[in-house]
């Protein structure tokens, strides 16, 4: 028995769009969704300046320890203040959405300040030779600060990082 369909559905018109037209269509959708996208929190000058201030205080402290050989007990206040400062910056940074990069790196810095204190309890942070613990500690703490500062610079200057100190690209 041959069953013929009572009716035939009309063929669906096929959109023959190029990749470029698809891109334009996608961007129009994005535009309607809110005109711009945000993957990373915007620049916050208070966070940036606070990180820079703590960086300065930390390097001054490490230089003083290398010169004076001060004990942990005599310099405990530095660690208390550093942890308090990082907690305050984290609190401020957490108010902005999509700020995980900065928050994670502040946590890494806080952990390394704790480890610095443990090293300081073992013995004074003296020695400037490349095979001394104090020299390498300084390098590692500097690395933590560079990672934080690099993110803030890209937030502030965008793709013009390194071109000019005060250039701000259109966003």
């Amino acid at each position, binding site marked *: 028995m041959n069953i013929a369909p009572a009716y035939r559905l009309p063929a669906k018109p096929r959109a023959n769009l190029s990749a470029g037209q698809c891109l334009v269509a996608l961007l129009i959708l994005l535009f309607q969704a809110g005109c711009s996208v945000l993957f990373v929190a915007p620049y916050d000058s208070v966070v940036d300046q606070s990180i820079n201030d703590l960086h300065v205080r930390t390097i001054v402290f490490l230089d003083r320890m290398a010169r004076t050989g001060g004990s942990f007990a005599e310099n405990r206040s530095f660690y208390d203040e550093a942890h308090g400062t990082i907690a305050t910056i984290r609190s401020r940074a957490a108010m902005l959405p999509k700020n995980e*990069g900065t928050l994670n*790196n502040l946590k*890494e810095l806080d952990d*390394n300040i704790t480890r610095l204190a443990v090293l300081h309890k073992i013995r004074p942070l003296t020695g400037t030779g490349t095979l001394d613990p104090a020299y390498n500690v300084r390098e590692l703490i500097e690395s*933590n600060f560079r990672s934080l500062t690099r*993110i803030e610079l*890209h*937030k502030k200057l965008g*793709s013009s990082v390194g071109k000019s100190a005060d250039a701000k690209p259109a966003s």
Partner: protein
Amino acid sequence: MKIDADQLATDIIAAMRAVLTAHWQKAAPYAEAEAKKLAICAAQIEAGYAAGTILQEEVVILRDMQASAARAALTSITTIGAIAAQDAINAALKVLSTAVNTAVKFPLL
């Protein structure tokens, strides 16, 4: 005025590529420099331990500090990548809005 979608796509891709390239040109030297510094630091810690200037209990802490610094550097690179993508898309949206607004002769987008 009719919009040439293919030409507009070419202009949008050019705007995105310029932003992405600029970000990468700044991020790549940082990534390389940080990797080298961390590698040198690791070698110095091992050499210091071998020479007796760094104690065993200090080596353990220094290695943890190094792992933390490396994680922070990777987080930084990842975040810069996200900022680059964000800036590239927003640059593309700007090209699109300019083209559309010029075509319709009023600020539609």
